[in-house]
Structure formats: structure tokens, C-alpha cells
């Protein structure tokens, strides 16, 4: 077995990345960047899984990452399709423009 980094480090990194992605999600108005922030968060979550799997020496962590990856891929494709529609309806990719549900 190769000596690996302690999982705590991995989890800490995952936390940091997740927090950054979370902040970006709330702060940005561009739809693409919002989607990118979501990707960051998914990635961080996957990192946490992998770290946990490495800690206990089980493959389940990586398997979970695999599934998260799949979900991320599906979500991105739909999200970008939505972005295309969004742009068609509202002319810009500004999320704040989508306020038809006001009131």
C-alpha cells in the first residue's frame, strides 16, 4: 500500500472548495457561472467521498464519486440546454431577468 495523505486533509480541502462554490452561487448573476459554481460544489462533494473512502480503504468512496460524476454530467447537459432556452427568451444570461414569478 502506498502511504497516502490523511483523509482529514482531503475533507478540509473539500470543505473549502464547497464553501467557495456556495459563495459563488449566491453572488454571481451570469447563468453559466452559476452552473459552474454548482459544478464546483459537486466536485467538492465528490472529493469528500473519495477522501472518506481512502480513509477506510474501501472502494465505496470512489464508486460514489463515479455516480456523482454521472449526475453532474446529466445535470450540466440539461442545465446548458436550459441556458440556451433562457437566452432565447430573455435575451441575456442575467439570472435576475427571470422574475416573471414576481408577486
Amino acid at each position: 500500500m502506498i502511504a497516502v495523505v490523511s483523509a482529514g486533509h482531503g475533507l478540509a480541502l473539500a470543505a473549502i472548495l464547497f464553501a467557495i462554490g456556495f459563495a459563488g452561487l449566491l453572488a454571481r448573476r451570469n447563468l453559466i457561472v452559476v452552473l459552474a459554481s454548482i459544478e464546483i460544489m459537486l466536485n467538492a462533494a465528490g472529493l469528500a467521498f473519495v477522501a472518506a473512502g481512502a480513509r477506510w480503504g474501501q472502494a465505496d468512496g470512489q464508486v460514489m464519486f463515479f455516480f456523482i460524476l454521472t449526475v453532474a454530467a446529466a445535470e450540466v447537459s440539461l442545465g446548458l440546454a436550459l441556458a440556451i432556452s433562457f437566452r432565447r427568451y430573455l435575451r441575456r444570461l442575467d439570472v435576475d431577468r427571470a422574475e416573471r414569478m414576481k408577486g
Partner: protein
Amino acid sequence: MTFLFYVAAIVAVVATLLVVTRSNLVHALLYLIVSLTAVAVVFYTLGAPFVAALEVIIYAGAIMMLFVFAVILLDLRSDEAERVPARAWIGPAILGVILLVELTVAVASSHSGGPGTSVPAQRVGETLFGPYVIGVELASMLLLAALVGARHVADRRDEPEEPDAPGNGPPDEAAS
């Protein structure tokens, strides 16, 4: 190995920060690719070479390519991304910090310290097609659904004509 981890971690964090702060859309996406690659390296240092490869191939490869193609197809230029005033970061930053603190405390107070073991790809494959084989099938269903759904959502055929609806800007010359 630890040194490699720290380097990759720092790169990842910096790149991610740059992703969320850049106003130029393409730059942000490129930084994202960098971040994802760095995370792949981190995976390797964690003894998970299989997912490291997956990360590079699928995440930083396919998914990011989707993003880039979307940017190209939508003909977005840097002027599409807005300038975020510093004032807008206050709230999200506070929330992010709180979240970070929570998670850090949670991590620190758990039993997750201690060295781990690397898990080779073969074991991953056995687990994946062993107990989790149903998940694999479902994943393929999911991808199919996403495929069909994306095709329909992005369909141009039943696009409504609403040039003067509220929330729309003035119709630009590249009206689709």
C-alpha cells in the same frame, strides 16, 4: 506525497476563487478546468488513481467541453458577464465562511484523521459491478433521460415571439 497534495490543493483553491470572481466568462471556465485538474492530482495523492483519471477525462474533459461549446454556440463574449461589485460579495462571503467553519469543526471533531490506504482501480471495478451494479444501470438511464431532455429543452421549433414582454431587453440583431 504530502507536499504534492499541498501544492495541488493550493492550486485548486486559488483557481476556484478565480472562477467565481472573474468577469470574463471564458477565463472563468478556463480556471475551472485548472481547478478540476488540480483536484485530480489530489485524488491521486489520496490513493485513488482511478477517479483521478475519471476526473480528468470526464469532468475536466467532457463536461468542461460542454461548457465551452455552450459559450461558443451562444455567441457569448466577455461583455455578457457582468461586473460584480465588491458590495455584492458581503452576504455570500459571510455565509460561505459560516459554512466553512461549520464543516471544519465537523471534520475536526470526527475520526477522520489518520492515514488512509490507496484503493486500486481493480477493486473499484469489482465494487462498482458487484454491489452497485444497479446504480450503474440507473446511471445509464439517467444519462439517456438527460440526453432526450436536453434535446427537447433546447428545441427551437416552438419558440414564442415575445419581444415586448417584461424582463426582456431590446431585441438584438442576433435574434434567435
